[in-house]
């Protein structure tokens, strides 16, 4: 082993002196044996053992490769699992080799003028606000661009257990998009007290979870539904 490593170490020690600064420019060719060349290419690793534990060589290496210096300390604070809103050519489901894929519009181009949500969950777009501000005007009828929906402005407040804020269901925002028959009576029975709704059911894709969590804003945006502060007994003076 020592015979094998000894010449290697000598070579390294020859290069040590200029390594930290001069490493940015290409090393002039040494007149020694031809085995030098691979060592010159990687000053970061090659100089390290001979110099002891010297930081500059490591710094150089990371700067050269373009990765941030504290990459090992990256921490996924927001539990982000994926790059969102990718163009069709890199979104992982479109075939980049398909000619049509390149013609398709990237989502962020379409979202450029739309109001975005702070969480960026789902599409990251506040669709109702976009419609209320007339930034988009999706058709209500397939042929007639002038036809308007029959909007029903009625809120339903539900009272979940414990300290969870009360849940306000606004009919207005839903009837802007949907026909009554989309939800009633298959998903929700149109009668007070007739629907057993729970977050468990929603997570299984029933009730609200039929749309929310798939195309409408996801269940992780708790406060958009649980929007009504609840006054708890004994805590009347406490502000939410």
């Amino acid at each position, binding site marked *: *082993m*020592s015979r094998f*490593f000894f010449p*290697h*170490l000598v070579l390294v020690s020859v290069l040590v002196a200029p390594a930290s600064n001069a490493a940015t420019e290409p090393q002039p060719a040494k007149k020694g044996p031809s085995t030098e060349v691979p060592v010159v290419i990687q000053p970061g*690793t090659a100089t*390290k*053992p001979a110099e002891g534990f010297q930081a500059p060589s490591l710094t150089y290496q990371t700067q050269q490769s373009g*990765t941030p210096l504290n*990459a*090992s300390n*990256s921490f*996924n604070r927001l539990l*982000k*699992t*994926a*790059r*969102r*809103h*990718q163009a*069709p050519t*890199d*979104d*992982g*489901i*479109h*075939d980049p080799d*398909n*000619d*049509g894929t390149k013609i*398709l*519009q990237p*989502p962020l181009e*379409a979202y450029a003028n739309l109001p975005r949500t702070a969480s960026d969950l*789902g*599409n990251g777009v506040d669709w109702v606000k976009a419609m209320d501000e007339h930034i*988009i005007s*999706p*058709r*209500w*009828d*397939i*042929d007639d661009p002038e036809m308007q929906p029959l909007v029903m402005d009625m809120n339903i407040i539900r009272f979940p257990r414990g300290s969870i804020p009360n849940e306000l269901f606004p009919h207005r925002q839903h009837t802007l*998009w*949907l*026909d009554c028959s*989309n939800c009633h009576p298959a998903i929700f029975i149109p009668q007070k007290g007739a629907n057993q709704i729970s977050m468990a059911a929603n*997570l*299984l*894709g*029933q009730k609200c*979870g*039929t*749309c*929310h*969590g*798939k*195309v409408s804003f*996801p*269940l992780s945006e708790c406060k958009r539904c649980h929007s009504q502060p609840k006054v708890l007994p004994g805590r009347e003076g406490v502000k939410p």
Partner: protein
Amino acid sequence: MTYLYPQIIFSKLFGACLLASLMLLAPLTAQAEYGDVVLNNRAEQSGMRPVIFPHWFHRIRFKCKVCHTEVGFEMRAGANDILMADIIDGKLCGKCHNNKIAWGPQNCHLCHSGLPGLKTGIRGGDSTGGPGKW
């Protein structure tokens, strides 16, 4: 013994680099846009790429009711048996994709643009089970 030292350093460095790159790459996988639907009950069997339906693109132009009531699409990915013959006849997608409201079905590769092998269902970080999960 000191000559073994470089080896240890190298292996530790290599391990650290590998770990760092994994931590960097792990959260960076690409994700389909929220609400994208893959339709592949028939496409690949017939020698075409799977269809990708982008909900986001369509809801900018039409309200949910248009497709889910007027056109008659079930609100469940995979529940609609869509044939090209129906589309050309002006049913389902063909109610709009008819060269009048939107471009027609001769633009095969705009819809049939999915990666081969994708399964039918909703994509894009959906967080609930049930309809749309097959």
